[in-house]
């Protein structure tokens, strides 16, 4: 891996040198190389075995304040020259953009600690198949109402990324990612339901056991059987942690620089204003060892740092790269490429505690569709979940929608659960929101 890293670093340096040679005043380049195994078993038999191997090379050149970019999957020296030439050609036609350019040299990361992101999993195809079969069997054997399966899939990928720019910054690190998932179908009275579960980690030995994954997948499917609609009404809504991640992601999308300078965000001009209740804190921890989204520098080479976005419910910082920052007259927050290991603070209740606190309302376990308008904050999604009375789940529900406005939903957040979803770069417990409109039969 060290040798491969040196090769890719050399490629990046060659790209930057070639860009300068072709007349660019500044340039940045990234190269990636990934390899992996993806296999699926279904009904106890191997269904697919895929060997993946992906290379990519991208270069952005600046001629003063004009920019051009090009990329290719071909890492040969000839392709390298052609790719740089293509990028330079584009820069002849793009406009002078006063905000274009590399991030400021003084912001480049200088310390590049090992964040322990690379944990190769020495797993043969046979061992992988065996794990997937154990996983699917656990799901299929749980209950006779599990009548069919979409299979169990095991993925194991190792990758290497190198980024450099003409400030002299160059960084690179290997990273691994492994996962196991299972989806099964249940049947009751002529109607079918499916659900799934997955486990994901940088370390193969930190995955949930195959049996656990299968069992949870089957339990989730079984719990949906007999789902029905509820009447149109207003009620409190509890977003289970895995779907609450999406709400937090919408918040992040609304404070992202590109949405702000385009005036395409419902949180435009909200810096310093209260947008969550006072007990909410949201921050990112980009240098977390073994973290799913950890990196010591962002996609422009800028040093990453722990940062609070929400403190006491007040918006403290936007999510900016250097381009958006210049557009807004601010400084980059080291978020080129997004947020890294974002966390919201939890209260004291787990999911069951939150159900009791809600008393009567809707527990949402699945969101469908893209009905989030980031310009206005209007929110309307299809959902499936459970109806709750007296703090206890009564029956599964489906074919209903929930609607409201994200601004009201964020302010209406009553509590965040301790049941934190950890399989995502954005992590949160379940969200209890005071009131939304449910549309049903």
């Amino acid at each position: 891996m060290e040798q491969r890293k040196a090769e890719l670093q050399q490629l990046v340096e060659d790209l930057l040198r070639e860009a300068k040679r072709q007349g660019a005043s500044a340039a940045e380049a990234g190269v990636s190389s990934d390899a992996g195994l993806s296999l699926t078993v279904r009904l106890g038999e191997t269904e697919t075995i895929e060997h993946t191997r992906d290379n990519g090379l991208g270069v952005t050149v600046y001629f003063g304040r004009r920019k051009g970019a090009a990329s290719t999957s071909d890492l040969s020296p000839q392709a390298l020259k052609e790719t740089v030439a293509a990028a330079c050609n584009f820069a002849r036609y793009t406009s002078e953009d006063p905000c274009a350019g590399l991030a400021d040299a003084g912001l480049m990361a200088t310390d590049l600690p090992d964040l322990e992101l690379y944990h190769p999993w020495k797993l043969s195809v046979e061992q992988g198949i065996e794990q997937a079969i154990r996983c699917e069997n656990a799901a299929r054997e749980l209950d006779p109402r599990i009548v069919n399966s979409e299979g169990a899939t095991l993925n194991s990928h190792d990758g290497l990324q190198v980024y450099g720019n003409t400030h002299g910054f160059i960084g690179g690190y290997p990273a691994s990612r492994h996962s196991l998932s299972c989806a099964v179908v249940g049947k009751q009275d002529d109607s079918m339901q499916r659900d799934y579960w997955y486990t994901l980690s940088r370390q193969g030995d930190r995955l949930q056991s195959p049996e656990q994954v299968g069992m949870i997948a089957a339990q989730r499917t079984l719990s949906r059987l007999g789902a029905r609609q509820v009447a149109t009404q207003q009620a409190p809504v509890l977003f289970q942690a895995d779907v609450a991640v999406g709400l937090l992601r919408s918040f992040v999308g609304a404070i992202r620089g590109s949405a702000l300078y385009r005036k395409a965000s419902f949180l435009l001009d909200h810096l310093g204003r209260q947008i969550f209740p006072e007990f909410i804190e949201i921050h990112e921890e980009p240098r977390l060892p073994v973290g799913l989204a950890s990196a010591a520098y962002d996609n422009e080479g800028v040093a990453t740092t722990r940062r609070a976005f929400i403190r006491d419910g007040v918006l403290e910082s936007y999510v900016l790269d250097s381009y958006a920052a210049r557009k807004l007259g601010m400084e980059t927050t080291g978020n080129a490429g997004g947020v890294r290991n974002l966390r919201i603070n939890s209260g004291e209740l787990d999911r069951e505690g939150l159900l009791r606190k809600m008393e009567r309302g809707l527990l949402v376990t699945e969101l469908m569709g893209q009905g989030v308008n980031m310009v206005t904050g209007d929110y309307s999604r299809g959902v499936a979940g459970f109806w709750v009375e007296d703090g206890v789940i009564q029956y599964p529900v489906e074919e209903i929608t929930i609607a409201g406005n994200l601004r009201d939903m964020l302010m209406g957040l009553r509590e965040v659960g301790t049941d934190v979803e950890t399989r995502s770069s954005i992590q949160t417990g379940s969200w209890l929101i005071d009131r939304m409109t449910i549309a049903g039969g």
Partner: protein
Amino acid sequence: MSDLIQIAQETILAPVGLAEQDLDRMLGELTGSGVDAADLYFQSSRLESWVLEDGIIKEGAHNIEQGAGIRVISGEKTGFAYSDELQLPTLQEAARAARAIIRGGADQSVRIAGMPVPRQLYAPINPLPSLSETEKIDLLRRVDSEARQQDPRVKQVIVSLVGAHDVVLVAAIDGTLSADVRPLIRLNVHVIVEQGSRREQGSSGGGARESFDYFLDQERALGYAREAVRQALVNLDAVDAPAGAMPVVLGPGWPGVLLHEAVGHGLEGDFNRKGTSAFSGRIGEQVAAGCCTVVDDGTLPGRRGSLNVDDEGTPSQNTVLIENGMLKGYMQDKHNARLMKVDTTGNGRRESYAHLPMPRMTNTYLLPGEYKPEEIIASVDRGLYAVNFGGGQVDITSGRFVFSASEAYLIENGKVTRPVKGATLIGNGPEAMTRVSMVGDDLKLDAGVGVCGKEGQSVPVGVGQPTLKVDELTVGGTEQ
């Protein structure tokens, strides 16, 4: 058109010194007892994109991808490997990896033969140089100024122009040798309008398997700009959408995303072979109202979802999925067709050489009925008239689907009255289709912007329909 094969060989194989005999030999090594099918898929694609924002040409980018995918099938098992290097030793290594699902050695020789593609639905051109860089920039600027001069409330305009030149070559142990050259262009306009403290957005666009001149023809691109602004301004006046079950009238064209989600995905062969679709085992049954006939048609000239041949080398077809409400057939690729003992319908598609093919839609639409659109609206006392949509999603197994309206109006006493905010509509595919009660005579296909995602793979598709009425769908607004 065997010249397609020649173009593909010259574009992909010749530069790396591969000849047809090399493909024969590689395929021969993939054969053996227990091997039911195997193919090689070569691809070379070039993509170019331009973005105008804040009145300036902000980005121009170019991407080149090239590689080969090798697939070996035994019963229900598939082995797959791919490489972005096209040198023979690398390909042979990938072939060994793909073939490792089968034990035993190769024992047959293969002789591929070019099969004529029955028709040419689009010219085998590279659209990227069809306009000069200066002309492309000029086009973007004209679209920008057209949008801005529509109304002083227009505050932001983003225009993007994308062109792709995709050359593919497929060879299989059943003797198939086929190729396609697929141009694809797209232009999108997104605007933000502002009135007092209220901001709204609108977007429009179109595309086809054509050269960039398509956008200049009858000032088509300027029409997208006007349409995006019109939508955004309508939304400035929108009131809260209603909540609950009610009659819904869907406009013609892009609202056909209803069919894509409500029935399209559920009729893809893989889900039905596995028995995981709400439509599984229901061929010959009534699954929609008698006024519904739905087809998947990959043979429409120049359309975004059209293909001369699919990614397994099979000529695309016009496949009747539902005829007068009765389920007639599924969409198939070779693998699922073989296991279900039916013929492939030319729906085997893949995002790229690095992805496995599966049954996918092409252009899916509902055939016209007898009603005038005005009659359909007049038949509704209180309901929703939805004419533009964002995306949709479906759960194949339960049949539940959603699609999100981005431009909709209330119908009160048979008349379209006020615009309402965007809202998600939710229904159950097989149920919703039995509730279609009126179908208009105004069939329209979408403007050519559809992207369909399935199992992580994106492919371009088309949708269409005439105006139609669903007697009851749940509308996800806030106004009770």
